[in-house]
C-alpha cells in the first residue's frame, strides 16, 4: 500500500508542478492577474506532496519491503539500520526522488517566506522552478519509477555496493544533492529576474540565502567526500582530480564566485548581468556534474553510478534548461542596465578579481575533465591527471588567495591603497619569513607546497584583520562568517601543503612481531586475525604505534570481504594526533607468508578537512546573520504597516 501511495502522491505533485508553470506564465501576461494568487499555494502544496512521497520510500527501505523492485535490488534484510536508511538514496531512482523532493520543498519555502521580491519576479521564479522540476518528474515517472513492484516478492535483497556501505558515504551524496538543488533555486531566481527585467539588490538579497545554503552543503559534501576517498580508497591521497570529484568541485567554484558577486549586487547594485550569468553557470555545473557521473562518459573511480541511457536523459534536460537559459540571457542581458561603477582599488574590484580567478579555475577544471573526450573526438585517448591540474589551477589560486588577504580590508567604491599598506605589510612579511624558513629547513620541498605554506600563513593571519578596530560583540555575525571562512581556506591550504611537502611513507613486508618505523612513529605488528561484521568478514591486523617512544596506541587496519553483494574493500586505520595523522593499510599476504603493510605519517593533514569544515561553518554564520537581519527588517515593516493601519483607523 505504501508504495502505491508514494507513487500516487508523486503523480499529483507532478500535476501541481505543471499547473504552477501554467498559472505562473498566464499570471505574467497582461490580464492574467487572477491567477497570480494561486502560484504560491501551488508551490507549497507541491512541496508537501513530494515530501510525503519521499517519506513513503524511506519507510519501504526501513521495512525492507522486498516486493518493491528498488528495495530488493539495493537493500538486504541483514543490513544495519543506518545503511537501510541510506539505501533510500544510495541508488539512482531514490537519489532522483531525493533531488525532486529537495527542489519542491525549497520551492515551497520560497513561496512561503519570500516577501521582498517584486511579486511578478517571484511568480516568474516559481514558474521557472516548476519548469525545471517537471523535467525531473518526467525522468522519475517515465523511466525510473522508484515504487515499481516485483511480480513476486524477492526472497532477499541484493544488498548495497560495499564501497557505499560506509557511514561517510551514506551522507555524502545527499549533502551534495542539497547543494546542487539549492543552486537550482538560485537559477530560478536568475531566470525570474531576467524574465521580468528586475535584476537589482532586492533580487540579490532574495537569492543570497539560497546560494549561501547551497554553498555550505557543497563545501561539507566536498570535504566529506575528500575524507571518504582518503580513508576508504586506501591510496593515502585526498584529491585525485577524478571526473566525479571535479564534478562536485565545479559547482562549488561557480557558487563561490556567485556568492561574492551576489554580495556586490546586494550592497552596491553593481555586477548585474554577471551575477545572473553566474546563477545560470552554477546550476549548469551541477547538472553537468550529475551528467558526467551518471553517463559514464568518462572513466572514473565512481563507476558504480553509471548508466548511459540515464545520462542521455540528463543531457536532454541540460540542453533544455541551460540552453534555454543561456538563450534567454543572450536576448535579455542587453536590457539589463549596467550597475554602479567603481574604481580599480575598491572592495568591488577585489571581488571581481576573485570572480575572474574562480572562473579561471572552473574553466581549467572543466577543460581538463573534458579533455580526454575532446582528444578522443580527434582519435586519441588520453588521461589527464595531477601533473596538469595542480600547477595550472595554482596559477589562478595563489594570486586569488593573495588578493583575499587584502580584499576584505578595502572600502566599497573607491579606496586609497596607502590606507592599508601598513596593515598588509604584516602578512606579507610573515609570508616572506615562512618562505625563508622553508627554504632553509626543508630545502627539498617542491615549489607548490612551498608557495602554499607562505600564502597560507599570510592568509591565516590576514583573514582576522577585518575585525580590527571593531567592537567584537557588535560585529555583525555575517562579518564573523566571512572571517572564519577565509581563515578556513588558509587552514585547509596549510594542511594540503604540509601533506604534500612532509609526508613520509613506509612499505614493508612484515611477519607478526616485526617492527618498522615511519617518520617519528615506531610500529609493531602484533597479530593478524579474522573478524566478522554484520555482512562482511575481514582479516584484521593489530598494530601498535608509538610516537617518539611514547605510550603506544593500537590500530586495526582491515581487508574486508563483503558477502551481499560480494566485494572487497580495504579499511585503513587512522591515528590522529594534534600534529599529524598515522595512516595504516593492510595489504595482501606475500608468497613468503609475510604481510604487505603500508604506513604513512602525514604531518598536519587533518587541517585540510578542519579547514573545509571551518569554511562551511563560516558560511553557516553568514547565513544566520543574513536571515536574522531579514527577519528583523520584516518585523520593522510589519510594525510600520500596523501603525499605518492604526493611524488610518483613527482618522
Amino acid at each position, binding site marked *: 500500500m505504501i508504495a502505491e501511495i508514494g507513487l500516487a502522491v508523486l503523480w499529483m505533485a507532478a500535476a501541481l508542478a505543471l499547473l504552477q508553470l501554467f498559472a505562473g506564465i498566464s499570471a505574467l501576461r497582461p490580464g492574467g492577474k487572477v491567477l497570480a494568487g494561486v502560484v504560491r499555494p501551488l508551490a507549497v502544496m507541491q512541496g508537501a506532496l513530494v515530501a510525503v512521497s519521499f517519506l513513503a520510500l524511506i519507510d519501504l527501505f526501513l521495512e525492507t519491503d522486498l516486493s518493491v523492485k528498488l528495495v530488493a535490488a539495493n537493500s538486504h534484510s541483514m543490513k544495519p539500520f543506518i545503511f537501510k536508511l541510506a539505501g533510500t538514496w544510495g541508488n539512482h531512482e531514490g537519489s532522483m526522488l531525493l533531488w525532486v523532493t529537495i527542489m519542491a520543498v525549497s520551492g515551497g519555502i520560497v513561496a512561503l517566506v519570500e516577501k521582498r521580491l517584486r511579486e511578478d519576479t517571484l511568480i516568474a521564479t516559481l514558474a521557472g522552478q516548476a519548469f525545471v522540476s517537471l523535467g525531473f518528474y518526467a525522468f522519475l515517472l517515465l523511466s525510473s519509477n522508484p515504487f515499481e513492484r516485483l511480480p513476486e516478492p524477492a526472497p532477499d535483497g541484493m544488498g548495497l555496493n560495499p564501497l557505499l556501505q560506509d557511514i561517510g558515504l551514506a551522507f555524502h551524496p545527499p549533502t551534495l544533492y542539497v547543494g546542487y538543488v539549492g543552486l537550482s533555486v538560485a537559477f530560478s531566481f536568475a531566470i525570474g529576474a531576467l524574465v521580468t527585467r528586475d535584476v537589482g539588490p532586492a533580487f540579490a538579497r532574495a537569492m543570497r540565502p539560497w546560494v549561501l545554503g547551497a554553498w555550505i552543503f557543497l563545501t561539507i559534501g566536498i570535504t566529506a567526500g575528500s575524507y571518504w576517498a582518503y580513508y576508504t580508497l586506501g*591510496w*593515502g591521497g585526498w584529491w*585525485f582530480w*577524478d571526473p566525479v570529484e571535479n564534478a562536485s568541485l565545479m559547482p562549488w567554484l561557480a557558487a563561490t564566485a556567485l556568492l561574492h558577486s551576489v554580495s556586490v549586487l546586494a550592497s552596491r547594485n553593481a*555586477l*548585474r*548581468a*554577471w551575477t545572473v*550569468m553566474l546563477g545560470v*553557470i552554477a546550476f*549548469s555545473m551541477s547538472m553537468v556534474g550529475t*551528467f558526467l557521473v551518471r*553517463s559514464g*562518459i568518462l*572513466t*572514473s*573511480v565512481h563507476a558504480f553510478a553509471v548508466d*548511459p541511457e540515464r*545520462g*542521455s536523459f540528463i*543531457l536532454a534536460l*541540460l*540542453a533544455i534548461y541551460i*540552453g534555454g537559459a*543561456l*538563450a534567454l*540571457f*543572450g536576448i535579455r*542581458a*542587453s536590457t539589463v542596465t*549596467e*550597475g554602479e*561603477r*567603481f*574604481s580599480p582599488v575598491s572592495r*568591488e*574590484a577585489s571581488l*571581481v578579481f576573485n*570572480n*575572474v580567478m574562480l572562473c579561471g579555475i572552473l574553466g581549467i577544471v572543466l577543460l581538463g575533465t*573534458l579533455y*580526454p*573526450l575532446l*582528444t*578522443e*573526438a580527434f*582519435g*586519441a*585517448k*588520453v*588521461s589527464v*591527471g*595531477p*601533473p596538469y591540474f595542480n600547477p595550472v589551477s595554482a596559477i589562478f589560486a595563489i594570486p586569488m588567495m593573495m588578493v583575499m588577504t587584502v580584499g576584505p580590508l578595502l572600502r566599497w567604491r573607491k579606496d586609497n591603497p596607502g590606507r592599508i599598506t601598513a596593515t598588509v605589510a604584516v602578512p606579507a612579511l610573515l609570508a616572506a619569513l615562512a618562505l625563508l624558513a622553508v627554504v632553509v629547513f626543508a630545502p627539498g620541498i617542491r615549489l607548490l607546497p612551498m608557495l602554499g605554506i607562505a600564502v597560507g600563513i599570510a592568509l591565516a593571519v590576514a583573514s582576522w584583520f577585518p575585525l580590527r578596530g571593531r567592537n567584537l560583540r557588535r560585529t555583525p555575525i555575517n562579518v564573523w562568517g566571512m572571517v572564519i571562512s577565509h581563515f578556513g581556506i588558509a587552514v585547509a591550504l596549510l594542511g594540503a601543503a604540509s601533506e604534500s611537502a612532509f609526508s613520509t*611513507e613506509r*612499505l614493508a613486508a612484515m611477519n607478526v612481531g616485526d617492527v618498522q618505523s615511519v617518520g617519528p612513529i615506531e610500529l609493531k605488528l602484533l597479530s593478524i586475525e579474522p573478524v566478522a561484521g554484520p555482512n562482511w568478514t575481514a582479516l584484521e591486523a593489530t598494530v601498535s604505534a608509538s610516537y617518539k617512544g611514547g605510550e603506544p596506541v593500537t590500530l586495526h587496519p582491515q581487508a574486508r570481504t563483503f558477502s551481499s553483494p560480494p566485494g572487497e574493500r580495504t579499511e585503513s586505520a587512522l591515528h590522529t594526533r594534534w600534529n599529524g595523522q598515522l595512516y595504516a593499510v593492510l*595489504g*595482501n599476504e606475500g608468497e613468503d607468508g609475510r604481510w*604487505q603493510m*603500508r604506513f604513512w605519517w602525514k604531518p598536519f593533514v587533518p587541517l585540510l578537512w578542519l579547514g573545509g569544515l571551518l569554511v562551511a561553518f563560516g558560511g553557516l554564520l553568514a547565513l544566520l546573520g543574513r536571515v536574522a537581519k531579514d527577519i528583523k527588517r520584516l518585523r520593522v515593516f510589519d510594525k510600520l504597516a500596523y501603525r499605518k493601519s492604526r493611524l488610518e483607523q483613527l482618522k
Partner: protein
Amino acid sequence: MSEPAPKRPGLAIWLPLILFGAFFALVIWGLVRPADREVASAFIGKPLPSFALEAAVEDRPGLATADFKAGKPKLLNVFASWCVPCAIESPQLAALAKQGVEIDGVAIRDRREDVARFLATNGNPFARIGKDDLSQVQLAIGSSGVPETFVIDGKGVIRYQHIGEIREEDMSLILEKLKEAES
C-alpha cells in the same frame, strides 16, 4: 572598472551559449561514438625506436629496446600512478602476468615514490619498469595517453596497440594478439 559583462548587445553575450553548444556536441558524440576501442596505429609493424630508460622503482630494472629482442613476445604497458584507469586495469594485467605473459612498464611523468605506492596498492605485474619523465618514449611509440598496451614480438616489432584500460572483455583479444606475435 566597469562590469565584466558587455554593455551593448554584442557577440560576447552569446558566447556562453556557443560554448555550451560545443560542449553539447562533444558529449553527444561521446555518447553515440562506436563502442569499438581499437584504433589502428601508424606504428604497427614498425620496430621499436631505440631508447634506454632508467628504472622507475628500486626492485625492478629499467627498460631498453634491447630487452624486447629476446625472441619472446611481450606486452609493453604505458601507465602512470596518477592515472585512474591504470588502477582499473591492474587485475587484468595481474591475470596476464599469472598466465606467464611478460609485461614491461613505462611510467609516464611520475615520481619514484608514487610509482612504488601505486604498485603496492594495485600489485606489480611488471618485469621491468622504465621511467619516462618527458613522455619521450611514449610519443616515439605512438602512444598519446595512459594507459596503453602494446604487443611487441620477439624481434622488437610493434604488433598491436590497445588504447585505454584493458577490461575483462579485452583479455581474449590481447592473448590472441600475443599468440599471433609468436609466429
